[in-house]
């Protein structure tokens, strides 16, 4: 049983998704999905523990040995990302009994849980697999199910957002497929470890260069790296509230993981940063993302859209951390994966509660809401403080590592820019907090505090941003050893 856990991590949600179709009952399928997501979290926790104790786990599918067979290879990096995905899904799925804000006919809710579980299994699959082609397959499972999830939004624009995401996502996925094909041409293998061993022999070849270009652009579309982020604001704004919370906290994180894998495991940091000088491209793009994302966020009138643009700027911090190619920089980027999942997940859940109470996410309609829903809006304030990076919250930890990394390299202007961009976050967060707490409510409607089934998941995530802001051993500690492991070859 224990040695089959890596397979179960993916197989469990995958088959449960199909079982959901058979259950059909709304409550039963929901409880079932929640139970499965908790099971996934338990497996992910056991896997992390095992990796920490005994080192890399290599699971051979069907007993076929790699490189011929498909290998699931779990090191600290994937174990860490598995936890993020499993944790967020385990918190988001139980959220708000029955209040999902979906445009699904009565009695068809089980389809939502089916798509949700498929999405989870795809994300876990991308993370856990050690086979390059497998990454593409799981990526498409994730993408297809997330297009369906986004299209379930109440606003008809959700359909157009899903279609745009579908077109861009497919182009991105196909680019990744081309990249994998070219790596296969050069190395004759699809196993990631095998590719990593054989690629150095082909470094001079243009095929490898083109493969890297296709992979980065493809992953960049999925990750919404600055100029490729076109699909993200609409998709997050019009998706059902809980879906936004889930996707914002996991989908881009897994894409970031793929980028880290491609750069540090497949091609090797030395080749990417010393020969190709990839950071010369990535650092300006990250900085642009940080500033343009935050600046556009300031002018939004819809709060979900505001958070979507803020996500673009936060992705900028992550890619910036990666492009330092130093232990502290990569630690900052990786720890921000976890931290950003906590705070954006929590913030989007707050908006889901608001949507439930006042049926709107327009900032104007939320005037004075802090008095009517004190617990919900307090969670928003804490999440917002964390986005800014106030000491005591997780946002501070990530930015600390990034600034330290910038100073280490002697890139003082970048350190200053990181701090300056935080001020933009202060502006867009303070602007809405002021409206929530210091404006008179629009009309005397009877607005009640969100039910406990919504408050508890929200506060688990927001409480996490405070807890891990003070207790950094588990997050920054693990991220630090991952960074050490990935940069083993570099000083």
């Amino acid at each position, binding site marked *: 049983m224990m040695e089959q856990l890596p397979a179960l991590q993916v197989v469990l949600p995958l088959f449960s998704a199909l079982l959901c179709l058979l259950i059909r009952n709304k409550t039963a399928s929901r409880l079932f999905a929640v139970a499965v997501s908790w099971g996934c979290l338990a497996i992910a926790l056991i896997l992390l523990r095992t990796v920490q104790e005994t080192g890399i786990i290599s699971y051979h599918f069907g007993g076929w040995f790699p490189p011929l067979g498909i290998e699931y290879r779990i090191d600290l990096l994937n174990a860490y990302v598995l936890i993020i995905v499993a944790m967020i899904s385990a918190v988001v799925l139980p959220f708000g009994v029955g209040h999902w804000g979906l445009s699904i006919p009565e009695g068809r809710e089980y389809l939502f849980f089916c798509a949700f579980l498929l999405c989870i299994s795809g994300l876990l699959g991308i993370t856990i697999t050690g086979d390059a082609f497998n990454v593409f397959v799981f990526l498409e499972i994730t993408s*297809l199910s997330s297009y369906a999830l986004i299209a379930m939004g109440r606003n*008809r*624009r959700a359909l*157009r957002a899903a279609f745009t995401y*579908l*077109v861009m996502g*497919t182009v991105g996925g196909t680019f990744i497929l081309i990249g994998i*094909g070219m790596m296969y*041409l050069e190395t004759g293998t699809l196993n990631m470890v095998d590719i990593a061993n054989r690629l150095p022999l082909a470094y001079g070849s243009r095929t490898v260069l083109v493969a890297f270009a296709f992979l980065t652009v493809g992953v960049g579309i999925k990750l919404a790296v600055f100029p490729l982020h076109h699909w993200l604001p609409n998709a997050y704004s019009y998706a059902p509230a809980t879906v936004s919370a889930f996707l914002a906290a996991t989908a881009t994180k897994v894409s970031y993981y793929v980028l880290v894998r491609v750069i540090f495991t497949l091609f090797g940091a030395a080749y990417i940063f010393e020969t190709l000088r990839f950071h010369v491209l990535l650092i300006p793009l990250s900085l642009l993302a940080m500033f343009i994302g935050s600046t556009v966020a300031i002018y939004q009138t819809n709060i979900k859209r505001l958070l979507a643009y803020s996500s673009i700027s936060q992705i900028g911090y992550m890619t910036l951390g990666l492009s330092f190619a130093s232990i502290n920089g990569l630690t900052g980027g990786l720890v921000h994966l976890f931290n950003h999942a906590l705070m954006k997940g929590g913030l989007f859940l707050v908006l889901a509660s608001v949507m439930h109470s006042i049926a709107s996410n327009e900032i104007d309609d939320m005037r004075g809401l802090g008095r009517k829903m004190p617990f919900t809006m307090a969670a928003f304030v804490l999440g917002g403080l964390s986005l800014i990076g106030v000491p005591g919250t997780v946002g501070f930890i990530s930015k600390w590592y990034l600034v330290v990394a910038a100073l280490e390299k002697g890139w003082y202007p970048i350190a200053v820019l990181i701090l300056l961009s935080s001020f933009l976050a202060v502006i867009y967060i303070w602007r809405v907090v002021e409206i929530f707490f210091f404006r008179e409510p629009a009309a005397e409607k009877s607005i009640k505090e969100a039910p406990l089934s919504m408050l508890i998941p929200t506060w688990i995530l927001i409480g996490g941003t405070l807890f891990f802001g003070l207790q950094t051993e588990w997050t920054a500690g693990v991220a630090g050893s991952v960074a050490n492991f990935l940069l083993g070859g570099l000083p």
Partner: protein
Amino acid sequence: MQWLGLWHYWAVIILMMIGLYIVIARDNLVKKVMGLSIFQVSVIMFYVSTGKVEGGTAPIIPEGGHDLVYSNPLPHVLMLTAIVVGISTTALALALIVRIQEAYGTVEDDELNAIDGAAL
């Protein structure tokens, strides 16, 4: 013909660019999906063509014969999955278009923009 290099790559590139151009330049959503399909098919052809080994035959060991040259079957097998992915994507995209047609009454991108813009 030497300057062409491996000519099948050119065929793939031309097909790919046709597909990508349709996705970008056409306003009709159905045509966009067609472009997307052409784009995906070009990659499938790219993979399949890389499996070709000169003088190679189908990778089945005939009775008694072992010293034959075989084509590489792996890219072909991989593309079975990619074809399934492509079909699912097309099906989902068409389903979305049906719902867009129901919700908006049009599938032309510029008209959709006009409707959404007016509703703002």
